[in-house]
């Protein structure tokens, strides 16, 4: 029997890696009349549901996904965030 666990993976450019998107956003701030905002970095957030026996197993799957597919370890860092375990079980076939 397994449960559904929902996670978010936040991927962002590693410190020191050139981030032209972040720079473009930063460059537009002046047009809004906003001051005092710096170090803008643009990343992405991927949300997903994993069916697993427990949260540790689910997290291990997300860890693998995050390092092999969702991020490029050469240029990006990621964090994994649990965003609530879905309560539904998928163990019993209809």
């Amino acid at each position, binding site marked *: 029997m397994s449960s559904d666990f929902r996670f978010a993976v936040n991927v962002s450019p590693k410190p020191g890696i*050139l981030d032209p*998107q972040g720079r473009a956003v930063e460059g537009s701030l002046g047009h809004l009349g906003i001051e005092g905002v710096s170090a803008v970095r643009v990343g992405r957030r991927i949300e997903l549901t994993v069916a697993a026996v427990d949260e540790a197993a689910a997290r291990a799957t997300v860890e693998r996904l995050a390092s092999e*597919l969702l991020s490029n370890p*050469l*240029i990006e860092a990621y964090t994994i965030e649990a965003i609530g375990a879905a309560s539904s079980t998928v163990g019993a076939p209809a």
Partner: protein
Amino acid sequence: MTARIGIVVFPGSNRDIDAVNAIEVVGAEPVALWHESATLDGVDAIILPGGFAYGDYLRAGVIARFSPVMRAISAFAADGGLVLGICNGFQVLTEAHLLPGALLRNRGLRFVSRQIRLVPERLDTPFTRAIGKRRPLRMPVAHGEGCFYADAATLDELERDGQVLFRYAHEDGAAADETGDPANPNGSLRAIAGVMNAAGNVAGLMPHPETAVEAILGSDDGLGIIRSFVDSAAARATEGEPLAVGGR
């Protein structure tokens, strides 16, 4: 003998037809390989063409990396097979860890589609041996994510081991600067336009030699690269010639 060159077609490839044309121009036989194919149809070498494989969703080249044909290509490359990635194909090869580095968004905040100039760093490789004396080479780029990146230690290693194949250059053939130089269209570190792996049988570049193979296309400076590749593939097929890449 006529070399058979496999040209991989991913959903979103759009320069595959140009690659087919370039291979025919130099008298070799192009063989289209669909991304779902788990075998390579016995081809002598592989080109990964330009385009937007799988829409470039997530990151350019990454979804393509996990396709069945890429598994076969990894094995082919590990066995010494010749693989050339052009533009999006270069991005796929870095994501597949068959080539070092990564390709970031262009520094100049725009997609660049124009003629550039580049110079080969060495002429003793399967990808450059037929280039001859013409310098610099003129051909187009067309990409939004072509800024070559690797950390400083890796860049030093690539330079030391002769893995830097091409650099962006000025009209007089002098290498372009890293930043603030229009001759470097995307801000690539050390103006690197193309690299190869340590074994010398896998290479990638952002510019498009395959669309610069006939005068009517505006330039035929890409012919030297295509011909090098095809000649090397044919030599390997007939003689089982080991890839003689001189070390540095």
